[in-house]
C-alpha cells in the first residue's frame, strides 16, 4: 500500500547556515493520526513546511518527499497543496482576508471552483468547525479560539486528504483546547500534528515521532514513547501527567 506521506533522508539548511533538518525519514499510512514532538527549534515547523512544498523554494534542501505516492516537484506543487492542508502556528499569519467568509473561500477560489461550489464548501467548512453565522465577521475581531477554528475551516474548504497541523492548541484556554481536540478527533483523513501539548498527543495520536536538533530520534506508539522518561528528558520533553491516570488498555485512551 502506498504511504500517504513518505519522507526519505530529508535535509534542509536555512540561508543563514542553520541546519534545520539532518536526514529525516519516516512514513505515514492512510488514516493515521501521528504526533510530532520535540523541543523548540528541533525542526518541527521546518519539516511541516516541506510537506506542503513551501520551504525548498528558499533554501538548500536535499532528500525526498512523496505525497500520496507522487514526488514533490515544482510541477506538481498546486496538486500537493490541494492534498495537504497546512495549519500555521500563528492564526494571524493564516487569516489574511478581511472577513471569515472571504478567508475560508480563498482556497476553493484559488482552485478555480464555480461560485456555487465555493459557497457550498464555505457553509460545510464553517458548520464543521462550529462557526456558522460568523461569515461576515472581521477576522481581526475573532477570539484566538475562533481564529484557530476559522483557519481549520479554510483548510477543510479545500478538502485535503492530509491535515498537517503546527501547534494547533497553542495559546488556547482549557475550554478552547478541549473543543479543538474534540473537533480534531471528528475530522476524517490522515493527520500529522506537531505539538508541545503531550496530553493531546496521548488522546489523539496512537503514534508519535520525536524530533530533536533536526534528527528523528524516536518513532513509535505514543504511550510507549512518553512513558520512556529517559528519552523524554534527553530531548527536552517530559512524561505527561495523563499517563499516570491512563486506562491499562490503550484502546480506551
Amino acid at each position, binding site marked *: 500500500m502506498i504511504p500517504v506521506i513518505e519522507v526519505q533522508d530529508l535535509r534542509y539548511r536555512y540561508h543563514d547556515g542553520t541546519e534545520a533538518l539532518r536526514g529525516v525519514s519516516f512514513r505515514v499510512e492512510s488514516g493515521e493520526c501521528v504526533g510530532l514532538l520535540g523541543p523548540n527549534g528541533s525542526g518541527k515547523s521546518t519539516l511541516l513546511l516541506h510537506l506542503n512544498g*513551501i520551504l525548498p523554494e528558499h533554501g538548500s534542501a536535499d532528500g525526498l518527499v512523496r505525497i500520496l505516492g507522487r514526488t514533490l516537484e515544482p510541477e506538481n506543487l498546486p496538486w500537493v*497543496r490541494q492534498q495537504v492542508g*497546512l495549519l500555521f502556528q500563528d492564526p494571524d499569519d493564516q487569516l*489574511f482576508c*478581511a472577513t471569515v467568509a472571504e478567508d475560508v473561500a480563498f*482556497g476553493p477560489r484559488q482552485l478555480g471552483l464555480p461560485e456555487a461550489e465555493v459557497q457550498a464548501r464555505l457553509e460545510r467548512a464553517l458548520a464543521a468547525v462550529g462557526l456558522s453565522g460568523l461569515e461576515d465577521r472581521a477576522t481581526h475581531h475573532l477570539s484566538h479560539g475562533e481564529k484557530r477554528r476559522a483557519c481549520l475551516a479554510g483548510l477543510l474548504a479545500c478538502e485535503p486528504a492530509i491535515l498537517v497541523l503546527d501547534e494547533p492548541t497553542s495559546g488556547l484556554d482549557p475550554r478552547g483546547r478541549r473543543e479543538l481536540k474534540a473537533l480534531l478527533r471528528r475530522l476524517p483523513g490522515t493527520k500529522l500534528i506537531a505539538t508541545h501539548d503531550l496530553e493531546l498527543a496521548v488522546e489523539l495520536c496512537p503514534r508519535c515521532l520525536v524530533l530533536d536538533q533536526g534528527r528523528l530520534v524516536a518513532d513509535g506508539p505514543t504511550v510507549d514513547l512518553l512513558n520512556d522518561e529517559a528519552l523524554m528528558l534527553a530531548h527536552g520533553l517530559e512524561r505527561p501527567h495523563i499517563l499516570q491516570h491512563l486506562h491499562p488498555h490503550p484502546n480506551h485512551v
Partner: protein
Amino acid sequence: MLLPGHIHRPRSSGIHRWPAEWKFAGALVILLGTVVQSELTPLWFGPVWGLLMWVWWRSRLPVGFVMSRLLWLSPFVLAVALAGAWRPVGGPAWWVLACKAFTSLLTVVLLANTTPFSEMLRVFRRLRVPGLLLSTLALMHRYVFVLLEETERMRRARAGRTFRPGRSRLWQIQASVVGHLLIRALARASRIYQAMLARGWS
C-alpha cells in the same frame, strides 16, 4: 488602546446601509468639486458642508471620534496651509486651502467609517481596479490592526522596564522599536506569503 476600526459597527445606521456605490460616487463628486474650487464659493461649500453635517448626524458617529480622526490627520491640513502661506503670489489663500483640505478629510473620514472596507474593495473591483492593487489594499487593511497591537505590546514592554525616562534615551528607544517593528513586519509578511502559497496562491 482603542484601535482604529473598533468604532466601526457595520449597518448600525441608515447611512451605513446605503449602497457603497452611492457613497463612493458621492464622496468622489465632493472631493473633485472641492479640489477645483479656487475660492470659498458659498454655492459649493454651503450645500457640501450641509450635506456632510447631515450625514455625520444621521450616521451617529460620535463627535469625539470624528474630531480625533481629524486631529490625527491635521498635520496634512497644516502642511497644505503652510505650503499655501509661503507661496509668493497667486493661487488660493492659505485658509482656502485649509478649508478645502478639511472638507476633503471629513468626507473621507465619514465614507471610511460608514462603509465596511470589504464593500469598498467590492466597489473598486467593479471599477476594474487592478487585482494586485486590491490584494495589497486588503492585506494592508487586515494587518494594520495586527501591527498596531504588536506596537502596543512593545510599548507596554518598554514602559515596564523604563525606570528613568530621559529625552535622549527615549528617542533611541523609539528608533529601536520602529526598527524591531519593521523586522517583525517583514518576518510576518514572509509567513503570510507561505500561508497564501499553502492554499494555492499563484
